[in-house]
């Protein structure tokens, strides 16, 4: 009795220490046969090395892994010991029970090691992600781009013709909610992780770079195949989603280190924004804290450099060009509405940014030269970056752009049928369309102009030049799009024509308050937020993600799957569980 009370009291006095040991990978992990991962056991207190017993299916772990772990008596100076063994793998598929103890009661976790066929079913995999992709994005893009006449869509998106579909769970090891880092990491490593983590389990290690890792899809492809790898995004290339293809860190904010991780893996094609983290510290505009010049390093490694759309298109056309580094912005690139129509955002500073369709086409042109096939990841990042600040028009224009990227991928697959295409988001947003906003409705109050049920009718977007985008975004009867979650902000019921929306700004009390720059727009109303005052924008939703696929391997996509299961579909399709 007393012993239990003391143990409980000790646990209360030492926050952060578990009361039992923790094993990584965690319980119910599904691990690819022959894939490398780090094995770690964290004990709640200091233990003697000789007392430690770790069994895998009844056998000593040293026998199973073929090497001895490192014992750390006091990890990071705390009164707690750890056992860590990096870069292990298990070859034989099956269920594995891991029991770890140090004199006391053992903790057991179970892993499933899965194998793959010997031969790949696809030569190429095109993995398309619209960050934050939610159902309302696709409905809105379809109505804006194709129209709806008497209840039926007047045209179809490329999205609408993908053959297989599943609902995907996006939750984290530490929460039902998630961010772009751990969700993309789930696709790329098959392991769930904590919010903000990339390619690692979040353990108690102090340094963000010392957590137990798992091999990413790109690293597996590099180690086992001769396939080419491409990473394309219109965000900073070191941002979470593209980073997840190559990175291992507990902190997605380790952007400078992530550039180094890109350099370690050297994907054949790397296209995106974020040049600031490639420039040495002494160059004005750099965001690095060291003098490493990654642009010079990539060039020395044989990459052609492109810094705008013209250079990209020219470089991709060169028949013997197999490695391209394209950096088109110091930060995140601009979206379709600003680049093609309004010329706001940072278009003035970077007037020659390629469209995501051009980046995708260039990547396919270069990667498809590889006789052994390729893995290409393309992210439409700004769908999320505009959805957060409640800028629906910009988010929907970029969804239309994402759909065109899907069209390019499907055209490629039509000519190269041994191509698996996956189309998905990483997590959702709380966005929904509930009707229209009609300026012609009487009165001054904007809420009375919201058309619901029969009074919504149809919006009056026009696409006379047939490019798929509405010719004008600020039409008189437009989609009524709202978020179910928001900080304090001024709702204007109108597209933000001057610049991307900034709904809330920080005050001197460290709280986000409604941005008064929008206060005097006719009809603007203050909405009191339903989020903590520490949130500056809308947040991610927990709602299921809709994932689609076509091509060899797509038949595995159905029902409800965890995002970690998608890694299994891709690795099975590419036969990465064997020595290819």
């Amino acid at each position: 009795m007393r012993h239990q009370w003391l143990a409980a009291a000790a646990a209360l006095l030492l926050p952060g220490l578990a009361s039992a040991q923790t094993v990584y990978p965690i319980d119910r992990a599904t691990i690819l046969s022959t894939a490398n991962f780090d094995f770690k056991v964290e004990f709640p207190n200091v233990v003697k090395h000789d007392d430690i017993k770790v069994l895998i299916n009844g056998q000593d772990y040293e026998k199973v892994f073929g090497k001895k772990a490192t014992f750390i008596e006091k990890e990071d100076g705390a009164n707690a010991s750890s056992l860590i063994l990096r870069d292990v793998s298990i070859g034989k598929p099956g269920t594995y029970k891991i029991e770890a103890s140090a004199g006391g009661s053992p903790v057991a976790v179970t892993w499933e090691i899965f194998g793959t066929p010997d031969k790949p079913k696809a030569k190429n995999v095109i993995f398309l992600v619209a960050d934050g992709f939610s159902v309302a994005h696709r409905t809105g893009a379809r109505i804006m781009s194709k129209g709806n006449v008497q209840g039926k869509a007047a045209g179809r998106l490329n999205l609408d013709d993908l053959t297989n579909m599943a609902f995907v769970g996006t939750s984290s090891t530490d929460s039902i909610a998630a961010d772009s880092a751990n969700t993309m990491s789930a696709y790329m490593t098959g392991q769930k992780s904590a919010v903000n983590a990339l390619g690692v389990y979040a353990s108690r290690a102090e340094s963000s770079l010392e957590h137990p890792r798992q091999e990413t899809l790109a690293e597996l492809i590099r180690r086992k195949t001769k396939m080419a790898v491409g990473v394309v995004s219109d965000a900073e290339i070191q941002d979470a989603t593209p980073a997840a293809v190559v990175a291992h860190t507990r902190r997605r904010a380790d952007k400078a280190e992530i550039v180094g991780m890109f350099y370690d893996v050297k994907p054949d094609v790397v296209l995106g924004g974020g040049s600031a983290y490639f420039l040495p510290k002494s160059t004005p505009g750099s965001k690095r804290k060291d003098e490493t010049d990654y642009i010079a390093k990539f060039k020395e490694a044989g990459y052609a450099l492109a810094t705008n759309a013209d250079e990209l298109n020219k470089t991709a056309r060169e028949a013997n060009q197999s490695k391209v580094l394209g950096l088109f912005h110091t930060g995140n690139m601009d979206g379709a509405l600003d680049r093609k129509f309004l010329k706001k955002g940072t278009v003035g500073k970077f007037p020659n940014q390629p469209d995501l369709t051009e980046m995708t086409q260039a990547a396919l042109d270069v990667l498809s030269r590889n006789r052994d096939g390729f893995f290409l990841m393309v992210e439409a990042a700004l769908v999320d970056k505009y959805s957060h600040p409640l800028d629906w028009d910009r988010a929907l224009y970029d969804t239309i752009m994402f759909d065109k990227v899907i069209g390019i991928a499907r055209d490629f697959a039509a000519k190269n049928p041994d191509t698996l295409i996956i189309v998905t988001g990483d997590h959702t947003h709380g966005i929904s369309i509930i009707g229209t906003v009609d300026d012609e409705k009487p009165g001054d109050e904007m809420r009375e102009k919201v058309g619901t049920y029969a009074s919504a009718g149809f919006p009056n977007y026009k696409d006379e030049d047939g490019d798929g985008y509405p010719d004008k975004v600020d039409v008189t009867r437009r989609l009524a799009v709202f978020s179910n979650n928001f900080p304090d902000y001024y709702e204007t019921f109108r597209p933000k024509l001057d610049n991307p929306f900034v709904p809330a700004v920080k005050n001197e009390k460290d709280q986000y308050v409604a941005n008064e720059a929008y206060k005097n727009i006719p009809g603007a109303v203050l909405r009191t937020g339903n989020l903590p005052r520490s949130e500056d924008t809308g947040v991610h939703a927990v709602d299921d993600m809709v994932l689609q696929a076509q091509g060899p391997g797509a038949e595995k996509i159905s029902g409800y799957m965890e995002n970690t299961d998608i890694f299994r579909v891709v690795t099975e399709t590419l036969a990465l569980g064997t020595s290819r």
Partner: protein
Amino acid sequence: MRHGTGRGLTRRGCLALLASTFAFPARAASSQLSFEELYSKIGVLGLEFSERVKALGGQTTRMTGFMAPPLRAESSFFVLSKIPMALCPFCSSDADWPEDIVVVYLRKKQTFVQYNAAIAVEGRLEYGSWTDPETGFVSLLRLRDAHFYTI
């Protein structure tokens, strides 16, 4: 007291010396600089300071903008930005900061109020990459010995 030539301070000289010590040098002769004039080249491979910035280096310069919220309400420095900033660059190392900012080091502490309000800042312009030894913050442009007022 002796007047005119001769060694030592005359009364007039003494008063002039006192006056110059206590006057605010900034208000007398400061040049106006806007955010649009900071860089002559902004590109993927870096930024280049404009000729105007290079000419004003070391001189009293006046800029208008908005205050990005600092860590403490009473601080001796803050970030001046072109538009009201939603995210404080100091508050976490995660936050990236835009190019359109100038770090203001105040001559003496002033109380920060009204984050949505436009302010004018006067100080000695300094350009070039510099790392603040206290915060580790790397800045490209600074106004030193500065003071600000709302406009």
